[in-house]
Structures are given as structure tokens and as C-alpha cells.
């Protein structure tokens, strides 16, 4: 493995340096039919699950085939996607916000052929490579974060929980029979890099044990003021500890103030908090982004904790399916999951979904908590 230089000279880092050039201009990459009709689209139709037609003022029609996939993808896989785009779409494609892939062609026949081809491709292990779907009133791909694959604070895995969930709701990815779209999101700790807080259903990794403190190590490696400042609830203070007659500069954590966010571990590797028994997932529901009919809304915690059960998280996926089925059965057309819960009342929501309401679901975090308690005589028995 000989080192091969790119041309960069470490002695003179500024030599030939190019910086601040920004991304490639998107116009370079637009398929010709898209470029031609840019800003001149009349309407669209979802012809069948995963197959869209957009009609332009010019009369042109572009057919889009949308397929799902794991966002963690290898260059081998991307090259295969390129082969498909070369074969069917003159070397153009796009990705959607929710990690779907879109192939665009100029006739319905080609689109159908492409859809068939995509649905035929499988991995050696048996799963689809490019399942077509993710449109309309169904479940589309899950947006998620890194999890155990590549982050230091996760309370669960992301790719695994997502795969397990999508397997269970797969039919809804390939159908459009729900009352409205259902957006599922996943984030692997409270920091919510994926910002799952406005999803119809959110899977959220949570820790339940405060950080451990490795005092002997901490003294050497930790910038104590940074760790103190990192704690959002001010639970950390500097202190001295005595171990075997030796004194160490360290920190103390006021454990009853800890919200289990892991920020201290980001600053200080001597404060790990992951724990097999302590960690798991919470489920939140009823958020939305779109302004359609009702306002955008935050998701609410309806299951405070489910233990991690790798590799397939059966309890978690069972509860998700339960919620989805109750919604599909009971909600009105156009009603998003949260709108349905608001209409029937959350007391009914718990009943219909077969979920238990516990003390942990009553908000007690700072000012906004008050606004979630009931201040009316109107409620249902």
C-alpha cells in the first residue's frame, strides 16, 4: 500500500490551493428534458406506486420511477445505479430528501420497463436492491442518522432499526392506501441529528444511565471547563477525587439533573454513558411538516422506552405496526396521524393503539411542559 500523492505538497499547503469553490452547479446535472421545461410544469400524476408523470406546458412528459434504498451505500452499489441510469436515462438521476433514488425517462413504456427491471434486482441475501414505491398516501423511506455504524453517542443502531422497520411496513411502501402520507424518521440519540421531531412516527434512541466517570483518565485528557460547559442542564461541576491515596482533578455529575444527552462524552472521552440495559428506543408520533389543512406540528412521546433487541428489534417494530394499523383503520381520508389523534383525543389514541400511558409521558421539562397539561373540563372517559 504505497502512498500516492494527489499533487498536494504538505511542505507548502498553500501552493496551488483551491478553496471556497462551493458545490458543483446543479444546472450541469439536469436531464435535458428537465432543463428544457424548468419552471414550466403544468401538473403531475402518480400513475402507479413509485411512478410519477410530470406534464409541462410544452406538452412534454417526464416519467419518474422512484425507488427506495439504504442510505448507507457502497461505491459498488452507486456504480450499479449509474449503470442503470446510463442504460435507461442517458446518464442522469437524482436522489430525494428521504434517500430515495429517482430515475427519469421520457415515455411510459420505458418507465414501466425500468420499474420492472428495478423490482427484479436483488442482493445475494435476498432483499430488493431497488424496490419501487414511496409515493402518495403510503410510507416512504426513513430518514435517519449514523447509529452504531459511525457515532460515539448513539443509544441504538440506526441502519438496523430502519431495516427492521421498513421490512415490517414494506407493503405500505409499495401501496398508497393509507389515509395520508406517513413519514417515519429515526435518530439515535437525544441530539436528533436527523431532526425527527416533526414526523408522523419517530424512532429515537435514548440513554437512561448518567455518564460513568473514569477519574484517573479524566485528569489527563479532559478539558474540564469544556465538559462542564457542554452539559445542557448544568449537571457537571469540577471536583477533586481521592483514589488509593492519590488526588485527581475530575468532575462530579449531579445525577438527578442528567437528561442523558451524551454531550459530556463528546467533550470528554472519560465520561462514557452507553449501557446495554440502560439504552433503547422511545417512540414519538403525530408530527408533521407540511402546512396542508393543519399547521406543522411536533411529534409526541407515546412509548417512553423499549429495550434494544438487535438485530431486529421485534418489540419496537410490533408497536410501530400496531400504531400504523390503528391509524389506517380509523383515520379519515387526508387526516395525518397527529390530526387523527387530536380529533379522537389522545386518551382514545392510547386505547385504540393498545398503548399504556405512564408517568413518563407527562411533560415535566421546563416551561413548555405546562402547556401540555389539560386545562379544561372537556375530556373523554
Amino acid at each position: 500500500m504505497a502512498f500516492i500523492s494527489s499533487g498536494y505538497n504538505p511542505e507548502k499547503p498553500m501552493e496551488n490551493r483551491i478553496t471556497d469553490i462551493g458545490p458543483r452547479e446543479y444546472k450541469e446535472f439536469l436531464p435535458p428534458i428537465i432543463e428544457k421545461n424548468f419552471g414550466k410544469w403544468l401538473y403531475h400524476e402518480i400513475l402507479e406506486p413509485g411512478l410519477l408523470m410530470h406534464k409541462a406546458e410544452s406538452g412534454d412528459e417526464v416519467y419518474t420511477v422512484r425507488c427506495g434504498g439504504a442510505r448507507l451505500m457502497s461505491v459498488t452499489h452507486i456504480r450499479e445505479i449509474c449503470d442503470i441510469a446510463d442504460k435507461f436515462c442517458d446518464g442522469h438521476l437524482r436522489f430525494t430528501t428521504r434517500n430515495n433514488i429517482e430515475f427519469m425517462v421520457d415515455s411510459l413504456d420505458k418507465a414501466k420497463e425500468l420499474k420492472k427491471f428495478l423490482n427484479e434486482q436483488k442482493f445475494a441475501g435476498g432483499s430488493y436492491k431497488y424496490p419501487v414505491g414511496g409515493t402518495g398516501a403510503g410510507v416512504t423511506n426513513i430518514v435517519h442518522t449514523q447509529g452504531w455504524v459511525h457515532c460515539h453517542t448513539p443509544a441504538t443502531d440506526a441502519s438496523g432499526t430502519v431495516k427492521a422497520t421498513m421490512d415490517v411496513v414494506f407493503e405500505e411502501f409499495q401501496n398508497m392506501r393509507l389515509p395520508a402520507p406517513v413519514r417515519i424518521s429515526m435518530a439515535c440519540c437525544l441530539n436528533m441529528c436527523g431532526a425527527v421531531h416533526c414526523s408522523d412516527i419517530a424512532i429515537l434512541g435514548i440513554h437512561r444511565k448518567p455518564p460513568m466517570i473514569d477519574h484517573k483518565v479524566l485528569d489527563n485528557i479532559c478539558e474540564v471547563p469544556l465538559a462542564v460547559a457542554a452539559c445542557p442542564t448544568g449537571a457537571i461541576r469540577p471536583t477533586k477525587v481521592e483514589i488509593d491515596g492519590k488526588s485527581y482533578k475530575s468532575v462530579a455529575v449531579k445525577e438527578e439533573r442528567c437528561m442523558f444527552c451524551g454531550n459530556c462524552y463528546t467533550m470528554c472521552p472519560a465520561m462514557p454513558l452507553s449501557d446495554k440495559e440502560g439504552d433503547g428506543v422511545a417512540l414519538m408520533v403525530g408530527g408533521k411538516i407540511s402546512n396542508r389543512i393543519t399547521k406543522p406540528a411536533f411529534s409526541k412521546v407515546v412509548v417512553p422506552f423499549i429495550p434494544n433487541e438487535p438485530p431486529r428489534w421485534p418489540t419496537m417494530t410490533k408497536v410501530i405496526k400496531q400504531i400504523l394499523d390503528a391509524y389506517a383503520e380509523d383515520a379519515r381520508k387526508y387526516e395525518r396521524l397527529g390530526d387523527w389523534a387530536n380529533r379522537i383525543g389522545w386518551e382514545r389514541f392510547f386505547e385504540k393503539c393498545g398503548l399504556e400511558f405512564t408517568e413518563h409521558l407527562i411533560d415535566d421539562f421546563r416551561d413548555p411542559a405546562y402547556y401540555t397539561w389539560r386545562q379544561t373540563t372537556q375530556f373523554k372517559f
Partner: protein
Amino acid sequence: MAKHKTPLLDQLESGPWPSFVSDIKLECENRAKNEKGVEFQIPADCPEDLLGVLELSYVDGETHWKHGGIVGVFGYGGGVIGRYCDQPEMFPGVAHFHTIRVNQPSGKYYTTEFLRQLCDLWEFRGSGLTNMHGATGDIVFIGTTTPQLEEIFFELTHNLNTDLGGSGSNLRTPATCLGMSRCEYACYDTQALCFNLTNEYQDELHRPAFPYKFKFKFDGCPNGCVASIARSDFSVIGTWRDEIRIDQEAVAGYVGGELAPNAGAHAGRDWGKFDIQKEVIDLCPSECMCYEDGKLSINDKECVRCMHCINTMPRALRIGNDRGASIFVGAKAPILDGAQMGSLLVPFVKVDAGNDYQEIKDIVEGIWDLWMEEGKNRERLGETMKRMGFQKIIEAAGVPFDVRQVQEPRTNPYIFWKAEDVEGGWDRDIVEYRKRHQQ
């Protein structure tokens, strides 16, 4: 022959949904075969070690990654995230395994030529594993070693003509919906604005000088496909302020059943015959629609542009002609004081490419000046707003106060009057006062 046994991960190969495990295994095989004779610059078997360490996490129920250590490229304060494995002897291929964020093109359109160039680079100098895309929108390269960082940056800028994305307390890589490129609802050119602002603010993107991260996101209409109102400190959402364009013939087509409602989005279930009264008129949140004698009318002055009727009958109804955008500020995830949606700062602004979007840039820069002055360390704009009051942000942005900025007026009368608000100011003479009032 796999380097590590992965019985738990292997169970994620079955089931219909595309398996990331199968994909990584494919990459392992290809790197082992190395048919093209690539001189891998980091361990060829690193994907094997990634599976190994992930399997260990599946057994332990705990992550095996550490943070720690600032790495990056010269002159940039973001774009690279240091990542180290806490079992380097067992998994040497991923001992140092840093993330590189590459700025994606607006709307995520690609040519296969460009994608293949990215693949070649990342196979040669990295793990060959990516996220297409990260949650913010970047192309995410997962896993390389420190000596490769400058080399990759050099190749990206010299050969691929592209730059890194953001990380740390800086402007994060802006993201946009596909907008006018393929959506009839787009009220402005989201891609052009995104591209323009990304280039205008390269310094802010690469050199952290903010109290904390700052995100721009651009949605072409209130459907919000990139979730800007929930996920960005500065969210620009397309809107219009004149009339929804109605094609009465097409309305009749929907009522008569010739046209599929909702562009077919609900076609998978038999919801019965389309009922315009029940499904459109009655669900309009501002109750501003009416269907009588086969004619649809909208009282546009009262319409709140929720998109429902347009989404339901896209061939009959189109967005208005006087188009622009609303600007929302301060959205963030729940850490710490709770989640915040973006709050409406500017009800309407023309999105004017001719003027190089100067009006929008003035607003951005006004807000940044205040936030950089007053924001505490690791305080998102939304939190600064809550602490200082929305008025301060509105003033800093240099835009007028407007009743649209609130859902309802305040319920407490604790108004922080300033001396200059009050006739005669606050300087008073107690001696004069005592002449009127005894002690």
C-alpha cells in the same frame, strides 16, 4: 471468506427492504478481488472491520466509536468529523475512520459521470462506503485516515471541481427541494437561491465563527418537502399573494370522475366517489371556498395557502402569479429547551435573482450580526430569540413588525417599555413630584 463472523448482522440480510449488510459485504468482496488493481490508500479490508465492529455493538448493545481529536483540512474549520474506534487492535482497518462531508448539488441531480468520479476517489482514498445522503443533505463519505484528508480535498477541488460541506459552529450545507426543476408548485427557484447563497457564504460555511451551527433550507411551497420550517434556522418557503388559478373545466373533470383526485396519491384504497364538498371545500382551513352550480370559487383574500385544494386537484388549481417567499427563523431540534418551529419573520419577499437576492441577504446578515454579538456559546438562533425576544430579531433583520408574525397577541401586559417609547423619557424630578404629593 469473511474476516469476522457476523451472525447477528447476517439476520438483516433477509426481508424485502434493501439490506445495508448485503451491500457492505458486496463492497468487501470487490475490494478483496480488486479487479481494477486499485492501490487502496487505506486498508482494503476496512469494510470487513466495519462489519466486525458493528457486530460487536450488536452483541454488546453499546457503540464502539470515540470522538476526540480535531482533524480537518488546512484553513477550514469544518467538513471533516474525527472518528476513532475504541477496539483498534481487533479492527485495525477502522481504527481511524473519519467522516468527510461533500457539498451536494442543489436538488441532488447527478450525472453518472460525476458520481463515478466520486466513487473512484472514495474507493481509492477511503472506505468505499457512503451515505447518499446525510441528514443535512451532504454527500457523506464514511471512513478514511488522517493523512488522506488533504489528498482527498486536493482531488475534490482540483479534479472534481467541488468543495466540502459544513460541520461545527458554522453555516451548514444549505439544502433545497427540487423546486422548479420538476414541481409545478414551486413559487420560486429554490435551487438557484440555494446555490447562490451557498457560494456567497463560503467563508461562513468553512470557517466557524458563529455561536453554533446555522442552517439554510429552501422549500418551494408550503408542502415543505425539505422540512425547512422544522429543520433550519433560516427557512425560505415559497408562497403567493394573488389568486389561485382555477380551470373550471378541470374542476368539472374531477367532480365528474374523469380526472383522478390527489394526482393518484390515494389510489390504493377505494375511498368512494370523489366528493368535492367533503374532500375539498369542507377541509379548507380558512373556509374560503365554495362550490355552487358546478362552479368553484375561492375567496382568495381569506385563503391561507395551505395547498390542500391544489394538492387534491392539481390539474384544476394552480398557484398564483404574484409569487415570492415567506421567511421563517429559529427552528431547531429539542436540545435543550424543547423543539422549535421556525417563526414567521417576513410574510412575503420577492425572490429576485436580478438583484442577486440582495433583499434576502440583507436580512440574513442583519440576523447574523445580532446573533454573533449576543448569542451565547452553543446557542442556536431559536434560543437567542427566546432569550432576547422576537422583537430584537425583527429589528436586526431590518423588517417591519407585522401582525402576521404572531399567532395571537401576547396574553400578559408585561411590556418592556423603553425610555424612548415614553413621552418625556424616564428622567423625572422627585422634588417636583413631592410638590404635588406629600411624603
